[in-house]
């Protein structure tokens, strides 16, 4: 999504109930300084957990066990019991 400079002046961009002390000049000067932003330290720690791989393996095994123990057939015939 690309926002043009004019878009900054729209009501959508700056809603009426914007926080106190918040103005367009302040924001534009802030943006000019921060042309690029880095991911915060908190964000950086949020990489994939090793547990995820194990969980995927466990759930796949559970699914296969379910298929092989006749649960698939039970699921298909569930309508006869309802």
């Amino acid at each position, binding site marked *: *999504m*690309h*926002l043009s*400079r004019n*878009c*900054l002046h729209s009501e*959508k*961009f700056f*809603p009426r109930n*914007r*926080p106190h002390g*918040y103005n367009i000049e302040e*924001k*534009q000067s*802030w*943006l*000019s300084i*921060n*042309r*690029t*932003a*880095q*991911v*915060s330290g*908190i*964000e*950086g720690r*949020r*990489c*994939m*957990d*090793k*547990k*995820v*791989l194990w*969980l*995927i393996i*466990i*759930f*796949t*095994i*559970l*699914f*296969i*066990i*379910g*298929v092989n*123990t*006749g*649960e*698939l057939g*039970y*699921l*298909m015939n*569930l*309508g*006869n*019991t*309802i």
Partner: protein
Amino acid sequence: MTRLRSLIQTLMALGTNAYLLFPFGGSVIYQGPLKAVCNPGLNCYSCPGALLSCPVGAFQNFMASLRFSTGGFPLTGAIVVGYLGFIGTAVGRMTCGWVCPFGFIQDLIYKIPTPKFSLWKPLRWVKYAVLALMVVVMPVFFVDASGLGHPWFCKLICPAGTLEGAIPLLFLKPSLWDTVGLFFWNKLTVLILILVAAIFISRIFCRVLCPLGAFYSLFSRLSLVKLEFIEGNCVECGACVRACPTGVVPNQEFDSRECIMCLKCVDACHFRALDFGMRPPPGKLPKVKHVTSPL
């Protein structure tokens, strides 16, 4: 992004209930091979249009049948847990925001222009009790005189079942009116209360009562997808908080269990402080992300 989400929600709601297109195909409820697959969202098995099973209903039936698993391996619902667990690990509650037909219905109802209210936050925990008690414990232990367990969530609460299953079936097959009893009127009351509440409080059923959402939320902090927060771009204008349908504060609550990844906050943020992304693999340091500011 909002339009794309609405389109996917519409396609999923119609696609998984496509049997409605063939209402004279014999049986009122479709019982073909596709019913062996569970819908990732909450969609009643007994809906005259449903092509897929309801995961919550299927799991309760497995639990209810545990006592009768004589000989062979007991049917524990491993197939449903494996299926839902896989989806939960992959995309977490994104399913609620993008695929669930009942969530879509609530989204539509919430568009009715009325004063809107926020939810009392402790109510969020009720859905975990519903999952544990009504979906797992009660079908096993609360049995009738013949020793048969029942899908208690479907019988007592599920508004999707009443809206998509019971009401259409009663109109399609009037002879079913003879079987209507206390359970139906109780569930109809629950449905009306939830639908009225959904006009004023967004996604109230998903946030308070949905056991499927509770199950998926267990994986919110592990799922492969995440909402990225770029702190340097945030001006704390609060636009994301106002846009969030589940009352999350995206710039403070990372990987919230309540986040349904609808990405309304991403659309609302004009400073690109929020973005949708995948988690980097374990052991690999995440790249420093450079995001160009809107100017």
